[in-house]
């Protein structure tokens, strides 16, 4: 072998962004391939699979993983992490790769939606008045439904002291409003004492997926804050 082809790989563990989260994240890997073999995303991004991504991080090539599509095509399903014989936290590692991506390079709407949520209380920016009107209107519609009327029903908003406070997936008021009635009908039948907050009611936490820990915590904090403000006993998060 000609001498110039032999390159020493220097691993700079001190300055790694991802591998330093916890030492066990990548360095224990024996490259057995359990992760890659069981991963449904193996083969979907040329050049990458979970084992190679972990290997790249071990060898100090973490920026290449961060810049690749891999951490985003991976659905963070956790099969690899669940089966890894060395206990490497692959799912957590790939999410950390998402965190390390510059925010304006996060694919799709999940970062913009997260920012929208911080500003307006839900990922799609639905205004409070529109939301309240929609709930009121749908409530009346459900009450007077021809096939299965629910006399006395309405959507309790900002009701104090309820047993259950429920979050809402913004796609429903936005595009599939009738789907909210599935839960409402169950509450009606069970005679549940429940409520919805008029603000910050979003149940979809895109910060979890965009790798934005601060926004994720902020949103969870708001859900808890709503429950405290309204003195609700239990939070139901129907995601």
């Amino acid at each position: 072998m000609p001498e110039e082809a032999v390159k020493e790989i220097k691993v700079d563990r001190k300055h790694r962004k991802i591998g330093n989260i916890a030492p066990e994240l990548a360095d224990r890997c024996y490259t057995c391939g359990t992760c890659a073999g069981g991963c449904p995303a193996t083969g979907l991004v040329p050049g990458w699979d979970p084992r190679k991504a972990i290997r790249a991080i071990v060898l100090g090539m973490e920026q290449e993983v961060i810049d690749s599509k891999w951490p985003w095509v991976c659905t963070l399903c956790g099969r690899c992490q669940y089966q890894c014989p060395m206990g490497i936290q692959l799912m957590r590692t790939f999410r950390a790769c998402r965190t390390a991506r510059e925010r304006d390079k996060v694919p799709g709407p999940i970062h913009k939606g997260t920012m929208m949520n911080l500003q307006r209380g839900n990922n799609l920016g639905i205004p409070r008045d529109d939301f309240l009107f929609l709930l009121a209107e749908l409530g009346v519609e459900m009450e007077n439904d021809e096939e299965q009327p629910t006399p006395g029903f309405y959507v309790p908003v900002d009701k104090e002291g309820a047993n259950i406070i429920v979050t809402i997936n913004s796609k429903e008021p936005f595009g599939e409003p009738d789907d909210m009635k599935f839960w409402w009908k169950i509450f009606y039948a069970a005679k549940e004492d429940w409520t919805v907050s008029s603000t910050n009611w979003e149940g979809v936490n895109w910060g979890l997926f965009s790798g934005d820990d601060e926004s994720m915590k902020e949103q969870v904090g708001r859900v808890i804050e709503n429950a405290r403000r309204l003195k609700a006993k239990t939070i139901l998060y129907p995601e």
Partner: protein
Amino acid sequence: MVSIFDLLAEYIKEGRIKLNTHKFHETYTVHDPCNYVRKSQISFGDNYGELSRWVAQQCIDPSLYREMCEDYMNNLCCGAGGGAWAMPYDKERWAYGSMKADQIKNTGAEIVIAPCHNCRDQIMKDLPKHCDMGTNYKETLYLWELVSLCLDFEPWNEAEIEAGHAARDAQFERDGVELDEEE
């Protein structure tokens, strides 16, 4: 904090809701959302694989149930998890989803129960269009949608209706909600 599985099971076990088990006569299977099963086990040491199947089987005769994955801790993701439903990688999502479609096809089930918003969208809206779901597949329902459709309930009594209307009117006034006259 309560999960949808705990709450639905509580309503059923305590008799707070009654279910009509003769509403559906189709074969059905239950998908395991990663967040409620595997990742719940990893993060909290417990999961909803069993309870999810139990709730579904309170709605439709268990003899019509078709298992998708005996080992539910290792069931496959729907293919749209981790935000992938919203991401611009459609081809990858469909290729990933084809493995879920295969599982569904192999069960021979007509109805797929999805206890997660995201999984339901992928299985209901994308997989039938872009993957082979087999000839038996008919529809996908949220777990709570299935429960809701099977509900067997009596309308509230006069006093309860009156109390509901009074609370509603007070709330509408407080929030400035004005609806057109009810027809």
